[in-house]
């Protein structure tokens, strides 16, 4: 069985990218974006302390709930919608195979 999953990501220009993401090396969505050299800054390195990896979840996958820290950061971020998440808080797991996400606008 392959340990890789597929993520469909739409960048800020509306272009779709098919990302192949490994589930066995503890990566998160922000890191996958960076490894594909997509324009995701990841300023704080993944501590949920900036909103540079904010994205909108557009498929109905059930994700782990927002932590208090992520909630607090999103409450101060801009362009936040109901389906907003911080990419750095979304772990790459087999359960999210086929996830569709869109990058939030640059601040």
């Amino acid at each position, binding site marked *: 069985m392959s340990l890789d999953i597929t993520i469909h990501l739409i960048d800020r220009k509306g272009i779709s990218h098919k990302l192949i993401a490994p589930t066995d090396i503890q990566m998160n969505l922000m890191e996958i974006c960076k490894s594909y050299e997509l324009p995701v800054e990841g*300023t704080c390195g993944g501590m949920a302390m*900036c909103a540079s990896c904010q994205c909108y979840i557009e498929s109905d996958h059930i994700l782990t709930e927002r932590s208090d820290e992520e*909630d607090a950061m999103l*409450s*101060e971020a801009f362009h936040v919608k109901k389906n907003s998440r911080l990419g750095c808080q979304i772990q790459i797991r087999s359960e999210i195979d086929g996830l569709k996400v869109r990058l939030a606008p640059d601040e």
Partner: protein
Amino acid sequence: MLNDMIKTDILIIGAGPTGLFTVFEAGLLKLKCHLIDSLPMPGGQCSEIYPKKPIYDIPSYPEILAGDLIKKLEKQIEPFQPKYTLGESAVSIEKTKDDHFIVTTDLGTKHMAPVVAIAGGLGSFEPRKPPLDRLAHFEDNGVNYIIKNPELYKNKKIVIAGGGDSALDWTIFLEGIGALVTLIHRRNEFRGALDSVDKVQKLKNKDRIQLITPAEVISLEGEDKLSSIVIDHNGNQFSIDCDYFIPLFGLTPKLGPIANWGLEIEKNAIKVDNTLDYQTNIPGIYAIGDVNTYPGKLKLILCGFHEATLMCQSAFKRIYPDKRNVLKYTTVSGVNGFDGSKKEAAKSTIKSID
């Protein structure tokens, strides 16, 4: 004019961990350093973004808080008497006839040095600005991101937006000055020091401030000067009078003017020669730490320390091309501070046994 300038051997732009450690390595070579940072305190991201977060990959520290790492670095470099220009950003650079650089800040402070080390991390910290129409138009005409002169707010109607420490602290501070202080946050929970949250709660209970949550400012109104703002409170939209709107949503790093210094930039970072000394395409200007890029670059504090060390050796050769230099070990030579202090290994006692 030359006399008004701050002069040093290595001018370091950015007082984060890499910039601070540069002072130590330069000091061992008897080179003096001056640091410029846009933040009011040293430490860069470690102080501004995550002072309370533990770091686990600093060699020999199984665990250290980012804020404590900065304190220890400041202690370590103390003998070399670094000087600082804090709360100012480096804006422009020019080269003199004798191959020195003059770096000017946004407040006009000038610095001259034969070597410039850019240790700017992800850039200088700037306020995060909410995406509101005509925000730029009202900047300094009712919209402020920093409170410089509290007198300005005397008997004014002030609206603060944000949910962190600075929003809470400034609400408490301005309550006694303004005619009416309103604090707006997108949710009911605030993340700040418990003591500050308590104080704001008390002020609210006593009707000394107006607290509107969960709410968001959605537009700004006025001609030349801000006169009112429109708030969305749980789907209810209404306008309130407002002389000053102070959005406090934290800071975000921006590479800023350094991007226009003629340095080779790749993916928001400065390209350097990693085979030698982390020099940029402009001889005499180096880039170290998170701000640089080269094949295989890793943005780690420990890599910044290494880059700073090699860079200082190269800077020495540039400043003293004719002087011989050989790497000295601190275990052998100790640390001879510019302040006259001397740290060295205790002499071993030699005593005969009868």
